[in-house]
């Protein structure tokens, strides 16, 4: 193998997709769609919007697969960057929400009942996650929700590991401040 070549488990499928192989397209979709949808869902908060986002991302895959050059970069990295860029585009097109509406988190002093239902809890956590700036949200989702390592998440976001750790630290700190009343249950 030549120096600088990247080992990519998706190369064969992508090349076959570029030649019009439907089975390869189906396999590629099955491999990546669940994680892509989960990422988009956590970035965008709306199911329909998340589905549109991943559909657009896969449309780019079908369009560009014939020109994919194996060995230069990992396909998964490219795919996730396309998905995140789609998410960022949609987020920037949204009208700015007032801060109070972004995360309707009850004040810890007023919460009478600490035993929240699971659905309410996940809704509250989801709302707090939505209130994070988009890059901090992406970092937290990739590292904590999708359990990717720091180096892998940094590569997907196109930033250094140090920059990723800074985003994570700030995102986690914000979540802790917003959801400190939940923490008291530990």
């Amino acid at each position, binding site marked *: 193998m030549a120096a600088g070549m990247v080992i990519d488990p998706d190369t064969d499928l992508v090349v076959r997709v570029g030649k*019009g192989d*439907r089975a390869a397209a189906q396999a590629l979709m099955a491999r990546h769609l669940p994680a892509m949808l989960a990422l988009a869902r956590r970035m965008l908060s709306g199911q329909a919007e998340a589905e549109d986002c*991943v559909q657009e991302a*896969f449309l780019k895959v*079908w369009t560009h697969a014939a020109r994919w050059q194996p060995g230069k970069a990992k396909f998964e990295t490219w795919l996730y960057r396309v998905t995140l860029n789609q998410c960022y585009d949609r987020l920037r097109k949204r009208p700015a929400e007032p801060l109070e509406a972004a995360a309707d988190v009850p004040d810890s002093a007023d919460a009478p009942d600490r035993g929240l239902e699971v659905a309410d809890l996940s809704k509250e956590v989801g709302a707090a996650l939505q209130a994070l700036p988009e890059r901090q949200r992406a970092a937290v989702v990739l590292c*904590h929700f999708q359990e990717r390592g720091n180096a892998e998440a940094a590569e997907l976001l196109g930033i250094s590991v140090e920059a990723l750790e800074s985003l994570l630290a700030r995102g986690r700190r914000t979540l802790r401040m917003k*959801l400190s009343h939940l923490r008291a249950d530990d």
Partner: protein
Amino acid sequence: MINQNGVMMMSEMDDKIFAEKLMKTLPTMAVPSALEARILADFDRLAARRQGGLMHFVEGWAERLWPGAPLWQPASVLALSLVIGLMAGVFVPSFNSASTTVTNSDQTLVADSTSVMDLYKDL
């Protein structure tokens, strides 16, 4: 004894553990089959469009001539052949001996016909 940096590190570790617990409360989602169908429909539509395209025709012939090679390889060989052919046509001198032979033959024929005419002249 925990200094200021130690306290900060402990806080960040606590934040990390807390964030992990929070993320575990978020539900995982199944992929809707309708979404899969839409994505594959996009693939089918693009594949059908390519089937009728000129590029697909060219790629098909390139695959027959040079299986497995990227399109630029047979294309560059054909282009090089064309250039060599054109240069040969321009720079290689044309062979005129055949035409001169024809001219000589023509002259001979004229000379012969003249002698034949001369025979009848005196009649």
